[in-house]
C-alpha cells in the first residue's frame, strides 16, 4: 500500500471561533472555509462555488460578513469569527434563526447559514432596516429556492422581535394575499 505522502508543513495557530479560542493545525494554503469544515468539524458553513460567486460560505470576521472561501485560514489569527453554529444563545435560537424557520425563509437550507450571518451583520448595524437596505445587504448571497421574499420578511420579523419578542408576522406573510 502506497501511503508515503509528500511532506506537508502545517501551520499551528489559534483562532477564535464563536467566542472560543481553538488551537488548530492546518496546511498553510487552506482557506478559512476548509479549516472550518475540515479541520474544525464546523460543517454548518456551506459552499457553492469556492470562488466568491455565491455567498454561501459567508461568515462574520470581526463582525463583518466575509466569504470564507476567499480568506486564508492563517490570515485569521487574532480575529473573531462567527459561524452559523455560534448564532444561538445557548439553547435559545437567535431571533433570526427563529423567524427564518417560522416563515420558511430556509427551504433547502443550504444558502441559509450564509444569509443568516449577512442578516445578523445588517441588524447589528441597523436595527430597523427598510426593505431596500435588506435587499442591498443580501445582494451577495444567492438563493435558488425562495425568491428571497420570505427571507426579507424573516429579517424584518427578527428586527421587530429584537425589540418586541412578541411581534407577529402579518396574515399575508403567513397565508397569502386576498383580493
Amino acid at each position, binding site marked *: 500500500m502506497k501511503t508515503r505522502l509528500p511532506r506537508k508543513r502545517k501551520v499551528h495557530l489559534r483562532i477564535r471561533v464563536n467566542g472560543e479560542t481553538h488551537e488548530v493545525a492546518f496546511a498553510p494554503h487552506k482557506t478559512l472555509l476548509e479549516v472550518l469544515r475540515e479541520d474544525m468539524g464546523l460543517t454548518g458553513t456551506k459552499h457553492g462555488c469556492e470562488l466568491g460567486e455565491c455567498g454561501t460560505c459567508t461568515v462574520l470576521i470581526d463582525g463583518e460578513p466575509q466569504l470564507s472561501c476567499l480568506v486564508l485560514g492563517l490570515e485569521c489569527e487574532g480575529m473573531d469569527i462567527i459561524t452559523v453554529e455560534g448564532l444561538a444563545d445557548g439553547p435559545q435560537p437567535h431571533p433570526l434563526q427563529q423567524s427564518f424557520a417560522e416563515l420558511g425563509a430556509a427551504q433547502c437550507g443550504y444558502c441559509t447559514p450564509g444569509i443568516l450571518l*449577512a442578516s445578523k451583520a445588517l441588524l447589528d448595524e441597523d436595527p430597523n432596516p427598510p426593505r431596500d437596505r435588506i435587499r442591498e445587504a443580501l445582494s451577495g448571497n444567492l438563493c435558488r429556492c425562495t425568491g428571497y421574499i420570505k427571507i426579507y420578511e424573516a429579517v424584518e420579523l427578527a428586527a421587530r422581535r429584537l425589540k418586541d419578542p412578541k411581534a407577529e408576522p402579518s396574515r399575508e406573510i403567513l397565508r397569502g394575499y386576498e383580493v
Partner: protein
Amino acid sequence: MAGSGENKTAMMRLSKFKYLAPRSVNDAAKMLADAGPTASVVAGGTDLYPNMKRRHQTPKTLIGLRRVEGMRGVSGTPEGGLRIGPMTTLTALERNATVKAAHPGLWKAVHSISTPILRNMGTLGGNICLDTRCNYYDQNYEWRRAINFCMKCDGDTCWVAPGSKVCLAVSSSDTAPLLCAIGARLHLVSATGEREIAAHELYRRDGIHFLSKRPDELLTEIVLPATNGWRSTYRKLRRREAFDFPVLGVGAWASFDGPVVKEARIFLGAVSPAPVEAAEAAKSLVGTRLEPDAVARASDLAYGPAKPVDNTDFLTRWRKEMTKVYVKGALEDLRGS
C-alpha cells in the same frame, strides 16, 4: 490530452505557497524583490485567490499586505487632494463621508463593485491592479484544457481573435476608468526607489501585460486631485445589480466655468484591455453647457473608441451600441441639476 503539471489541477483549492506577512512598506518591497517573479502580493485576495484556484496564477510566495502599516485609510482634504491607502477596503471607502460628498464619481464606481460582502474584503489597490478578464480565461484548468488553453495562460492562441498578436482580455476594474478620468495619481514603491504616475499611465492595451507597473513595485498610495470646480461620475452596464463585473464602464469628468465646460475627460472601461479614452468625445464638450445636442454629439463620438470583443457577458454588438446610451447618461449626470 492529459494534464502534465503537479500544480495544474482544477480543484477549487489554492495552489501551494509560502506566506509572508511584512509589517512595513519597505519590508514588503524588499520581500517582493527578494522573492522574484514567482512572488505575488495579496491584498483582499478576492481577485488573486479565485485566480489561484483556477490555476491562472500559482505564486510560490505570497506577500500579504494586511498587516503593513500605513497602507490603509483616507487622509488629507478634498481641496488639498485626498490620499487613499491601497489597502483601504471598498466598504471603508463607500462609508467614508468625505469621499461620498467630494467624489461622488468614485463613490458610485466603488459602490457598483461586486457585492457588499466582497467589498468588505476587496481593496482599492487590488481593484486598480485587477487582472484582466475574458470568458475563455476565467475558467477552471480542466475547461481551459478542453479549449486547448489560450495565449494569456498555458497556451498560444487567442480564441477571441485567433489572428491577434495580443491578448484582448478586458480591463474589468470599475474604479480604473473613473480614476483615469479624474486624473488620479498613483504612488509606486520598490526596493530600488519610488515614483508617481498618472492613473491612465498604469494601464496597457495588452491583456497579459496590462500594467506598466513592474512586478517588484508596490502600489502604496492613490492621490485624488484637488476638488475645485469639477464634477465626475461613473456609469456601469452589467447583467445583474450585484456580483457582475462591468461589460461597459463610463468614467466621466468635466471642469466648469460656471455652466460652461472648460475641460472634459471620458474613459471607457471593459471594452479593451485598458481603460480607453474617448478623447474626441470629451473635446467636443469643451465650451458647451452639456445641452442635449452636445451630449448627443459626444455620445456618438464615444462610440468609435469602444471596441468590445466577444469575451464577456452580452452580445458584443449590443454592448457597443450601449456605449452611446451610457456615455449620454454619464454626461447627463455631469450636467446635474
